[in-house]
């Protein structure tokens, strides 16, 4: 684990270009503190499929126990817990001087909760219910931000994505993408060869699922553009439609 102080030191001494490259998700430890056992199990299943090491806690006491004794790369924290509030847990964590990244997941997507959570040092806030792909994207980006001296580039085949610069390289040539194209491509790059559902993408770009028809058409056209650009650049990768449900980066 790398603390905040170390992070600054390191980024100071090691410029990005010489940073050590490690596989991102391998052996990344995640703690889920969530009292809904089923939800916790689903998230655990999913994250384990993504090769994370996952531990769970179901109440305040066991959560506190885990965060005091171990370090995690990312903690998924519910606010309403038996025996206490996730906010208190977050405060405890910071009081212990730990810098584990925290994503608050809560059914209460009230703004004040969000603000309070972020003020207490949470890194992100995700309102229930969420797409697992969305959760995955957030976890990845948090771990990436945290390990600034580590893996900064996402590779797939000959394509590299630089999240900090929002830049994509095919071989050594830059692939010029507009904003939304980049956002969509990011989703594909963090989960290559996996199905990315259209609804997830639509919500990511439009933010309100209600307006399906328009945004799905929009996604379709954006994906079409992306495919054309990838093909023109001879990237050797393609976005494959999966039964009209979504796409897969292959």
């Amino acid at each position, binding site marked *: 684990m790398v603390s905040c102080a170390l992070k600054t030191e390191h980024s100071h001494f090691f410029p990005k270009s010489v940073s050590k490259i490690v596989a991102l998700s391998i052996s990344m430890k995640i703690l889920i503190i969530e009292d809904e056992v089923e939800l916790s199990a689903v998230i655990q299943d999913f994250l384990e499929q993504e090769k994370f090491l996952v531990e769970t806690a179901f109440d305040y006491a066991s959560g506190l126990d885990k965060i005091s004794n171990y370090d995690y790369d990312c903690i998924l924290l519910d606010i309403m817990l038996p025996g206490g509030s996730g906010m208190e847990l977050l405060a405890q964590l910071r009081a212990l001087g730990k810098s584990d990244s925290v994503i608050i997941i809560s*059914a209460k997507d009230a703004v004040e909760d969000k603000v309070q959570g972020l003020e207490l040092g949470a890194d992100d806030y995700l309102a229930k219910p969420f797409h697992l792909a969305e959760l995955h994207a957030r976890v990845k980006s948090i771990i990436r931000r945290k390990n600034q001296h580590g893996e900064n580039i996402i590779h797939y085949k000959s394509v590299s994505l630089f999240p900090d610069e929002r830049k994509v390289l095919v071989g050594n040539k830059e692939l010029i993408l507009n904003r939304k194209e980049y956002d969509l491509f990011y989703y594909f790059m963090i989960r290559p060869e996996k199905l990315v559902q259209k609804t997830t993408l639509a919500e990511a770009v439009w933010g309100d699922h209600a307006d399906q028809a328009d945004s799905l058409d929009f996604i379709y056209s954006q994906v079409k553009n992306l495919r054309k650009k990838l093909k023109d650049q001879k990237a050797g990768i393609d976005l494959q439609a999966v039964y009209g449900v979504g796409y897969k980066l292959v």
Partner: protein
Amino acid sequence: MKISLKNYTIRYLIIAFLVIMAVWASLFYAYILDEVYDNVDDGLKNQKIEILRGVYEEPELLETSEYGINQFRIRPAEGDEEFSEENRLSREFFYMPYDDEQEPYRVLRTGFYGRDHKPYHLEIRTSTVEEDDLIYDLTTALMVLYAVLVLSLYLINTFVLGRAWRPFKIILDNLNHYRFGTKDKLRPIDTNVLEFNQLHTELDRMWRRNEELFDEQKRFIENAAHELQTPLAITINKLDLLMEDETLNESQLTQIAESKSSLLRLVNLNKSLLMLSRIENKQYKNVERVSFNDISRELVNEFQDLLDFKHIELLLHEESTFEIEMDRYLATVLISNLLRNAIKYTPEGGQINVFHVQDRFSVTNTAIGPALDPDIVFNRFHKGEQDKGSTGLGLAIVKSIVDSYPILSVGYTYANEKHMFFIKK
């Protein structure tokens, strides 16, 4: 025609008074006249007795053939003339030099036998009331009385009843200003009128009961929406996991995707309902000075790709800055919902205009259909005809946000085949 309660009574009282006074006046007149004649007649009869006595003692009085100072005359009865000793009273007119006109007199005619045993006619007269003058005077007096009565009635109504009814006015005013869920207190009334106090107490109780029910209902909606979030999250995430399964065939995968899509609609509905109750519960309290110009610029930037995709031209007009003290998040939701609404309903190749004027922020867009009904367009779950996927809550949220700031108002108009939604300060 609607009239106020106090004028309502006065209208009938005026007519009633008029009738009562007319009847009373006729009776009064008849009694007075009766009494006057009675008095006069008694006097005449008394005079007759005195005259007859005088004639016995002084026979030369029999020679009084014309009315003189004594106001009587005597003439001997002719042979075939009708003769009677009964008193006959009548009302006649005689010339009166003082007034220089004919004046009414009461005349007593009778007959008697003198000492000479001859029959004589006796006529005694006396001046009596002038009935027309009496009627005239009486009418005048009554009219004055009537006028005074009506006037005092009016004044009493205006001042006394007005004062007595003031608490009622306050109660009406209270009801008028009452808005559900505002948690205002009823303005207290200060009166010793029993009925008003009762009315006030009952209203107050009803009010509280309603508020409690309303609160309960709001809490119920919020709790229900809230409680649904976790099971929805579990279901959706399980479907997500299921969709990762590479062995699924097309129809299975499509069906799962469709289920998820329906669930996501539910999620959105839920979120919108939660948001509505939070707005109504005034949970967004981070009030600061926000510029609609800044927010719309950011949002337009956000939506630009989608706008390009739909070939919609969006023009931002910033004649002035539209600034207001409100919660920034709510301001963003407000503008975002209006913009999304416009984008959603603008046909391909259409145009959206966003105007910022000092006291007015408006969004217009090219219309496909006819004008919307301004009375229901902001209603919850009201949806346009061509709408399938929408929650029908977007504009309801806009309205709810605007309503939570008393200085803001929202409206809709339609002109030149353009829909326009505007926010006014």
